[in-house]
């Protein structure tokens, strides 16, 4: 039990270093590509958190969507918008120090509140066995959460349509209809 706890705390510390260190690097790194890679590191740390919190499925989803898909998208768009990768360019604006101050204050307020609040922690028995099967999740998605579930797909559709309209190069349309598509 003690060893297990020690392992957990060790993992927590490592993951925190990854997450917060990666996060700090994301917001301070001068090279945007590096920033994106650090974002991946930070997200991987968060993934580890999910594992420690017994949300294995979520961890895998995090790996799949955040690291596997969203970060690819970000890397692509970084490469597409050239000119910002000029090294040595100043990457923070003039208000950064006010921002830092405000952010620090926010953090302090949050932390103080969190440590003062008495959280209604579940009883030990429940804490020990949070075994949520993926099947339960799946059933919930089409059960009580059916409407959000459908809305997500609509949201994705809308995002895709909007993004295609925005990102497509204008004035680059071939005059004839695409023969392959059989339109």
């Amino acid at each position, binding site marked *: 039990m003690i060893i297990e706890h020690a*392992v*957990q705390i060790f*993992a927590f510390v490592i993951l925190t270093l990854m997450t917060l260190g990666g996060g700090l690097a994301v917001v301070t790194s001068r090279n945007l590509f590096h920033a994106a890679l650090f974002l991946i590191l930070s997200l991987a740390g968060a993934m580890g958190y999910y*594992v*420690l919190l*017994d949300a*294995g*499925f979520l*961890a895998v*989803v995090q790996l*799949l*969507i955040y690291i*596997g*898909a*969203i970060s*690819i*998208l970000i890397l*692509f*768009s970084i*490469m*597409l918008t*050239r000119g910002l*990768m000029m090294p040595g360019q100043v990457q923070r604006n003039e208000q950064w120090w006010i921002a830092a101050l405000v952010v620090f204050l926010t953090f302090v307020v949050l932390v103080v509140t969190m440590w003062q609040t008495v959280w209604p922690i579940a009883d030990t028995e429940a804490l020990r066995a949070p*075994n949520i*099967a*993926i*099947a*339960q*999740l*799946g*059933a919930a*998605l*089409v*059960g009580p959460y*059916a409407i959000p*579930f*459908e809305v*997500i*797909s*609509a949201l*994705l*559709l809308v*995002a*895709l*349509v909007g*993004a*295609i*309209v925005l*990102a*497509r*190069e204008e004035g680059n*349309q071939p005059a004839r209809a*695409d023969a392959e*598509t059989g*339109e």
Partner: protein
Amino acid sequence: MLSEFAFVGVLVIFATLLPVAGLAVAWLIRPKKPNPIKQSTYECGIETRGETWVQFRACYYIFALLFVVFDVEAAFLLPWAVAYQQLALYAVIEAIIFVAILAYALIYAWRKGALRWI
């Protein structure tokens, strides 16, 4: 569950060790005779001209976009698929509607020519 992921953690460490060790060994025993020509960027023997980071077309981005959308779809549908055998017909129909909406996304991209290379 933690113990299962613990294995993944151990494997990550070992999997990192392999290439690191390999590279270290190679670094020890390989010859090191750099010269500027060898270290220049390889472009079929021609001198590199212009910037390397030429701007690429947005169609790559659009493919990545579709990928993201369908990846999210997978993340939502896989739990559903696991639960599939216990579900009633209406729940299956909900998922089919979900798939249909995303299929419409694909059709939209197709008809807009976003799937066309060049």
